[in-house]
């Protein structure tokens, strides 16, 4: 496939103004699906565990005669989210059918909301790395249902093209979604990619603060479609936009927006025109590729869903939910910074890595703020970076706090703790399980250490004399030998103590 011509980013921004728009789908963590009483796989810890086509009822399969019934908790979550986005809540909102044929869509229509969404006209405050605040206008947030999952079989890549056939699992069909749609975002200029990342990060923070979604991008709990168009600087008329689908990490949002700006600029600069189309983000290549062109065939024939009735939340319900909202993220940031006693730089370090919620939850689970920050922005971020993914969601905050506690108690050294972190991320179990199965506990049994010291001293008999002569640093050679023999699972400080005791006896 020929590579896209790309314009230098700074040069592109000199000539063109990017206009952004985002559609973020949030899977709600209700007990059951949007319209059926099947268990909601987006709520469990492992959506795949039960096997394909296990979390389904006749409604999710779209069997003839089956009918949808709205999940009240999903409505409450949607209203809370609307309020947290600063939206107005519709006095009356209703569901509509969006008609199109696709094998993952059991009824061949999606129940969504169209002209009467539950929430509309909001605004989200987004903070960039240097502390700059950008206000992103929200057009609407509406309720809908997710589709099933396709597996493409045959062909080289498991992708849709070249596959021999496909298999459909409807477990995800009917999972409750809220789709958040921004208005066009103007004036971001060279910070457009950063704004994209920060906006999606802010949505994730809001949703997790509300506790209404697991919001793990790598699991598809939170999915972002990024719309990008360019217009010549100073021009009034909007350019043709592309919609890059399912960008599944924060750093991918930033990269995808940057890529589209450079790609579109190169086309426009060469006198070409942008095709209105969906595009796919390829994490591996760091590129987007053309998807489905928008065409006349995109006629969804929306009409009011006759099987469902309007949702008309009472003023009392809205006020009840408003009163229960957690602090707004901006307020929360100010409070956390003070509570944790971080410097500006330390705090921004956490926030910009999208780790506020992780650190907060780790602290809530018992870790000292400085320790929580150290592990998340240090070792866990390093592993995430090596794996080109986001650190958030890699490991649970509770597990991190358990590891911190083990270090504090002397059960683990820092070095061992790093191994435990990696093993937990690799799915080997909880920290305690990893320590047991890998045998990583610090050897705190003095007799084992003493035996090792004796053995080392037998090899280097002159060391004790040197120590007694005041050359305490000579102990280092023995410590090294002991640590080697204990395969690193000894507390170096204790070994040193024991050697010094021996020298004095």
């Amino acid at each position, binding site marked *: 496939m020929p590579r896209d011509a790309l314009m230098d980013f700074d040069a592109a921004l000199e000539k063109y103004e990017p206009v952004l728009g985002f559609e973020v789908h949030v899977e709600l963590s*209700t*007990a*059951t699906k949007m319209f059926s*009483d*099947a*268990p909601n796989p987006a709520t469990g810890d492992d959506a795949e565990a039960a*096997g*394909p*086509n*296990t*979390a*389904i*009822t*006749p409604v999710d*399969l779209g069997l003839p005669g089956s009918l949808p*019934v*709205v*999940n*009240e*908790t*999903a*409505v409450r979550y949607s209203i809370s989210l609307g309020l947290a986005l600063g939206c107005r809540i519709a006095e*009356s909102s*209703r569901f509509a059918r969006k*008609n*199109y*044929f*696709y*094998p*993952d*869509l059991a009824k*061949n229509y999606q129940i969504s909301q169209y002209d009467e969404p539950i929430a509309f006209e909001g605004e989200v405050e987004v903070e960039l790395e240097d502390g700059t605040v950008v206000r992103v206008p929200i057009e609407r947030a509406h309720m809908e249902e997710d*589709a099933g999952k*396709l*597996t*493409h079989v045959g062909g080289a890549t498991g992708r*849709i093209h070249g*596959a021999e*056939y*496909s*298999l*459909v*699992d*409807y477990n995800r069909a009917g999972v409750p979604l809220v789709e958040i749609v921004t208005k066009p975002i103007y004036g971001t200029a060279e910070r457009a990619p950063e704004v994209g990342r920060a906006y999606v990060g802010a949505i994730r923070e809001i949703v997790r603060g509300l506790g209404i979604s697991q919001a793990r991008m790598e699991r598809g709990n939170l999915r972002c479609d990024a719309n990008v168009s360019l217009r010549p600087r100073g021009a009034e008329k909007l350019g043709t936009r592309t919609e890059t*689908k399912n960008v599944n990490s924060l750093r991918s949002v930033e990269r995808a927006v940057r890529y589209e700006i450079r790609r579109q600029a190169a086309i426009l600069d060469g006198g070409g025109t942008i095709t209105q189309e*969906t595009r796919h983000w390829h994490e591996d290549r760091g590129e987007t590729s053309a*998807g*489905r062109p928008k065409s*006349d*065939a995109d*006629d969804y*024939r929306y009409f*009011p869903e*006759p099987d*469902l*009735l*309007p*949702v*008309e*939340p009472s003023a009392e319900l809205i006020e009840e939910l408003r009163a229960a909202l957690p602090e707004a993220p901006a307020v929360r940031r100010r409070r956390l910074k003070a509570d944790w006693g971080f410097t500006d730089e330390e705090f921004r370090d956490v926030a910009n890595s999208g780790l506020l919620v992780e650190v907060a939850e780790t602290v809530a689970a018992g870790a000292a703020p400085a320790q929580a920050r150290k592990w998340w922005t240090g070792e866990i971020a390093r592993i995430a970076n090596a794996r080109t993914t986001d650190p958030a969601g890699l490991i649970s905050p509770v597990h991190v706090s358990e590891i911190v506690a083990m270090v504090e108690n002397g059960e683990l050294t820092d070095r061992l703790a790093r191994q435990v972190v990696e093993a937990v991320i690799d799915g080997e179990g909880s920290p305690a399980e990893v320590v047991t199965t890998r045998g990583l506990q610090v050897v705190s049994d003095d007799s084992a250490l003493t035996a090792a010291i004796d053995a080392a001293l037998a090899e280097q008999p002159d060391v004790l004399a040197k120590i007694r002569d005041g050359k305490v640093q000579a102990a280092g050679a023995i410590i090294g030998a002991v640590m080697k023999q204990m395969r690193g699972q000894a507390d170096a400080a204790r070994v040193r103590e024991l050697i010094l005791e021996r020298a004095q006896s």
Partner: protein
Amino acid sequence: MSEITPDLVRHLAGLARIALSDAEIQRLTGELGQIVDSVAKVSEVATADVPATSHPIPLTNVFRDDVPGPTLSPAAALAGAPEAESDRFKVSAILGEEQ
């Protein structure tokens, strides 16, 4: 006169995923033209001041408690499927992209 043409019928058949034969398209063009002409009279009385009714009996806020119920077993779910493999529904290759 109605605006139903064979091309329009072909387009509609595409949206409705029905592989109509050319003969059916010809016949339907005539029949739909007649039907559309006769039903178009709804616009005579459907003035801007009349609200639309989508449900015959007005109800609102009909909800379900968020409590799981019984599910179909994969065997029951797949029992009626034309083709299945590894507990999934099997379909031939997909041409178009997701929506």
